[in-house]
């Protein structure tokens, strides 16, 4: 019935077929080591994708979140070093709040001046990156300086195992944070009025105003949510790769947007789901991972991401057009 017509089902089927194909070409794909590695690679892009999903449902787009993520990470780490702070929770709260505050700027410009989200976020992203490098610093905080408690936090594994070659590997516990945030986002989108207002606004902004939604609140929420998730993901990334690089995430927004579009969210707004996004993220990470395994040059990986964005967007656009007729 309807489950076969749902985009999520189609994405899941494509994903399975792709996994089988990749497994045939490269049997190592199915090794526990590889799967755990894949899941680990899902975490950061996935958390950011949840924010972008919400923005896209509202009919907008955000390309500034990677800048916010970098700013949140770098400022927080610098602050921790400056104050010699040794906790874990507070830094993540601060990073999240930095992202949230920056997201509020996006919402302000988009709502107050009725500006196109793409232009606003291109601008704010550029300003934030520029200010960070110009005012805060350009030096990378490496493993020797990186707060050890962050590194240890991100090192927590759910399962530990040893591979045939004798190396230790495990499934990172950070995946739980990602899935937890995904669950919260899903419940929130489906079971709260503000969540529904995002769908309503993305479907018909004028009608949303007429039925009495506070659309200013909706937009504020949407962009703050994306900013907050990006800020959180930024610091988590720093903790997982053991360094805080103020130039990190360059061009990463395309990967995230590609994953969300791949997950069936509509560029016209009003459509998209957390489950689809989880699948889209997994698919994108898997494809990039396979390219690396097949020793494809990184420049060609950009080509693949670009093709995925255009292809998936064309598909969803075609799907949504068809419904309009």
């Amino acid at each position, binding site marked *: 019935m309807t489950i076969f017509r749902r985009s999520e089902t189609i994405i899941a089927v494509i994903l399975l077929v792709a996994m089988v194909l990749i497994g045939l070409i490269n049997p190592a794909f199915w090794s526990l080591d590889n799967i755990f590695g894949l899941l680990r690679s899902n975490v950061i892009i996935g958390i950011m994708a949840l924010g972008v999903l919400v923005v896209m449902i509202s009919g907008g787009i955000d390309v500034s979140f990677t800048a916010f993520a970098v700013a949140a990470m770098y400022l927080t780490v610098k602050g921790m070093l400056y104050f010699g702070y040794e906790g874990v929770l507070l830094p993540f709260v601060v990073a999240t709040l930095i992202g949230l505050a920056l997201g509020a700027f996006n919402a302000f410009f988009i709502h107050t001046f009725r500006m196109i989200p793409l232009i606003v976020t291109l601008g704010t992203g550029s300003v934030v990156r520029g200010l960070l490098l110009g005012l805060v610093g350009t030096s990378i905080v490496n493993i020797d300086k990186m707060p050890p408690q962050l590194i240890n936090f991100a090192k927590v594994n759910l399962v530990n195992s040893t591979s045939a070659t004798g190396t230790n590997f495990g499934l990172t516990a950070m995946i739980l944070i990602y899935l937890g945030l995904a669950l919260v986002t899903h419940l929130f989108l489906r079971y709260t009025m503000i969540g529904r207002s995002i769908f309503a606004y993305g*479907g*018909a902004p004028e009608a949303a105003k007429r039925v009495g939604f506070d659309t200013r609140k909706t937009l504020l929420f949407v962009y703050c949510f994306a900013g907050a998730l990006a800020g959180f993901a930024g610091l988590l990334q720093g903790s997982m790769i053991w360094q805080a690089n103020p130039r990190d995430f360059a061009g990463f927004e395309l990967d995230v947007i590609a994953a969300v579009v791949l997950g069936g969210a*509509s560029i016209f707004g009003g459509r998209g789901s957390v489950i689809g996004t989880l699948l889209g993220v997994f698919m994108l990470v898997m494809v990039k991972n396979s390219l690396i395994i097949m020793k494809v040059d990184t420049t060609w990986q950009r080509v693949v991401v670009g093709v995925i964005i255009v292809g998936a967007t064309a598909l969803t656009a075609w799907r949504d057009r068809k419904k309009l007729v």
Partner: protein
Amino acid sequence: MQDASVSLMFAGLHRSGESMSENLLELKNVSKRFGGLVALDNVSLVLKPGEIHCLAGENGSGKSTIIKIMSGVYTPTDGEILIDGKPLTGFTPAQSVQQGIQVIYQDFSLFGNLTVAENLALNTLLLEGKKSVSWKRIRDLATKALARLGVTMDLDADVESLPTSGKQIVAIARAMMGDARLIIMDEPTTALTRPEVDALFRIVRDIQAQGIAVLFVSHKMREMLEISERLTVLRNGKKVAEGPISDFNEAAITRAMTGHDLTDQTYEWKPAAAIDQPRLDVKQLNIPGALENIDLTLHAGEIVGLSGLIGSGRTELALALFGMNPKYTGSVMIDGKKVHPKSVQEAIESGLAYVPEDRLTEGLFLTQSIERNMLATSFENFVSGIFIDRKKADAATKAMFGAMQIAAPGPQTPVNHLSGGNQQRVVLARWLLTGARVLILNGPTVGVDVGSKAQIHRKIRELATQNGLAVLMISDDVPELVQNCNRVIVMHRGRFVDEVSADTLNEDALNDRLKALK
């Protein structure tokens, strides 16, 4: 099927809420001005509980202003709004909804990406100030709303997958939730087929049976006569007629809407004493496979109709003359000068103007000023060096603004502030500014309401008689041709096959000849 006992129960429920004798809603001497423009002038209107009332008027007559005043979007400049006999000050949209007034706009304001159930329930949930969503409650609310209209529908279908009539039902059902007492429908039949209109009318009568008043805003006379009990007619912001529907017939409504009778005013063309040369003289025009041996002569002041079935070559002829299909053989002369325009630009320069099929207004830049719209095709006439000669352009547009009697504060007013009829004048003005001497119109009044149609016709006639234009009017609308043309040419398979001259021109004669072609 509608459950009669349910509707009676609801009727009782609703009537008990108010005393029977009161008027549900009354506008008392209401005026609304925007700057210098009077949108509504001292209008009084009474709506009784449970009546079907029709508000008629052309585009720009003030209908939408009344809707916005009733829904609290506009505050009247003068006058009072009374609900249940009590005057209200500072009437807001929220108050309007609280009083049970619901507007169904032409676009329905629905969410295409959401399900029928959610579209129906959102309003109620919002009104209740809910923070969380119970999907069971959404379904319950939706089921109840549809039951009240006596219709069944797939609650899980996305609204955008529904046909227009289905969307309308959702919009009506949504409007009736809460405690609706008055439902205002803005042009509800526009996109509906006849069976769908019938279904809508059944629903409207059901709504009425539940004690809810319906204000039907329309310009379609047959439908007004069919559904409404009382009628109020607006013209230019003033109330010009009201009364029970039995006092009206189509002609009376038309007269009230437009201010004059529209019938029996045929166009008479008297050739000037000495006609030396025709405005447009086409000889032996041929396009292989499309046009064959076309001979056409238009004199100044003539309005010549071009009739025929679709695909008869009418549009091809217009496009050939207007430089959009220059691959023809034969000669075309304008005022005795041989022309063969190979582009639209050249055609305009040689004195031709062509207003394409579709609505006249589709060629307008709606957010731009009247002035800019008028100049859009003739800027090159007002250029000195590389700059626009402002003085010359201003003088020309001002003169045209006056000549066309456009109802607006001035030439700087954006075109989207104008009524349909006035917008059409701007389009005609634009073509006049190009210095056109031959005007080709293709379906000049397709999709235009009665009054605007009459205005356009009047303007076209004036252009012919006063400005000496030669007009070629392509139309499928037989009454339009009969009324406005001094002769009508019938075209078939790329050839002129017949011509009906003024003395024998009437609807029957033309219809007979068109039928003979089939």
